[in-house]
């Protein structure tokens, strides 16, 4: 279950400046301070994801997406039933994006939902442990 999320950031190759967006349904500041952040690096290319960490502890998960491919890609995090919890938006070739979510224990799907990219292989899973 998602407690809060920050939106996506599209980072230009030049500065890759952080542009964290909206916080939705945010927990209290105290709760956020107590929650550890775990980063998950993700590489995208035609037509597969490379996930640098397949399992993380519950809490804030920061997805660092790099598009190594030639086409644009995005990263969508959804529940196993397909409910979308967050997305980076389209990330151009050679660009990066960050998506930060608060994730409860469970298994989540990571997909690229542009065109037929998911059907062609751009999907993987992330396990969140207690």
């Amino acid at each position, binding site marked *: 279950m998602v407690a809060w999320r920050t939106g996506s950031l599209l980072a230009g190759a030049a500065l*890759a400046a952080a542009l964290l967006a909206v916080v939705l349904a945010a927990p209290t500041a105290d709760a956020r301070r107590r929650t550890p952040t775990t980063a*998950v690096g993700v*590489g995208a290319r035609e037509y597969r994801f490379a996930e640098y960490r397949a399992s993380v502890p519950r809490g804030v998960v920061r997805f660092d997406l790099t598009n190594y491919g030639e086409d644009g890609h995005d990263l969508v995090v959804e529940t196993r039933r397909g409910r979308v919890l967050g997305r980076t938006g389209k990330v151009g070739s050679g660009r990066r994006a960050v998506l930060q979510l608060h994730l409860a224990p469970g298994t989540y799907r990571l997909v690229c939902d542009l065109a037929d990219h998911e059907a062609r292989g751009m999907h993987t899973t992330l396990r969140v442990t207690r």
Partner: protein
Amino acid sequence: MSWTDAHVRRLFWRAGFGATPAEVRAWAKRGRAATLDWVVDGPRGGARLRGPAPNIRGRRLDPVNVWGDDVLWWIDRMVRTTYPLQEKLTLIWHDHFATSQQDTPLMLAQNRTLRRGALGSFRALLGAVTRDPAMQLFLSLADSTKQAPNENYARELMELFTLGSGYSERDVREAARALTGFSSRYSNSGLVSIAYRPDQHDDGVKTLLGRRGRLGPDDVLDLVTTQRQHAPFLVGKLWSYFVATPPSAGTVRALATIYRRSGLQIKPLVRAILSHPALYANLDAPDLVKAPVVYVAGALRTTGTYVTQDYATWMLEQMGQLPFDPPSVAGWDWGPAWMSSNSMCQRFALGNYLVTWGRPRVRRGSAPATLTPRQAFQRAWSAVGEPPVSGATRATLEHLAKHFFDDLDPRWRGTAGWRGEALQGTLRHLLLTCPDSQLH
């Protein structure tokens, strides 16, 4: 050859990332041979990291998963290693075997491979790089099959990695055939492995560089490294990282002989280059431009500053040398090309960073406005690690110090500590960024 502080500074900058004042004094006393042995062979028991591990505002580095932490992780090694030559050679091989646009875990694995083989056998290093997953994917050697051999790796192997010239298009095609058979396997989470599959290898007869037979990948590597032009090629390439002036024909011959007689070992060749009188020419007028990575890591190391901020990643990208991301398979353009206006602007920004966050920052009450110009210069010079400074630069900075308080009533100098501290910050920044500091 005499052996002075200036010799030690030159050697430590060229072979690594600069010398601290304590290192300069200690190794100048111990002499040339002992210093060269220590620099080339490293400490007994291998490299260690000294000093505090990086801590970015309470966060430990996660080089695999957090973008930019891979760069900070490597810069930290350059700053804290007890064997700087090993890190310098790792950087040199990263440029020589330039690879980019690959997943971070693969790039970090390649970095470990380059470090492990940095000063060993070139043939062994070439074999490891040829089988390295990041390289295999970057130059399309993985999944090059007998039905469709890909020539990318074969071409760069000869042009950029081992020979430079003296081969034909046919040699490239035949080498590509001989290098077929590496096959990648993926899961939903990324690359699982790259393995050699004999059924995907072209086992037909090839003719490569004058030799005919059923050649395979290791035959190709043996052939290119035993060509006559290989040793002079590698000598010239390695020399260019250490000495700005090209070597004479006689020097190339002598160094190539050392390299060949050692069985293509890298360390004896590097030792010979670092011992060469050309490396110590014009000690008071350095002529090799510091590469951005060397400039950043060197400034941190020589001022006793550790990695506590993530600025280095952004600055290096703007300076034009982001590790793990060379612009092409040919690596970076070294030398004066580093000194673009944007790059120089970022080098000034690094000076700001160091005098704000680093060890050279000015402590309140540490620099009264009553210091003489010479004392003010000396204090700033000590605070930034006693870098080599020309007489002209020193005179200019002392002139600045002399007139820094001209607008101030002399009666107020005794209580104008903040102005003295402003002068110290200015002098330290200029020492870290002046023309002298861009060269080594």
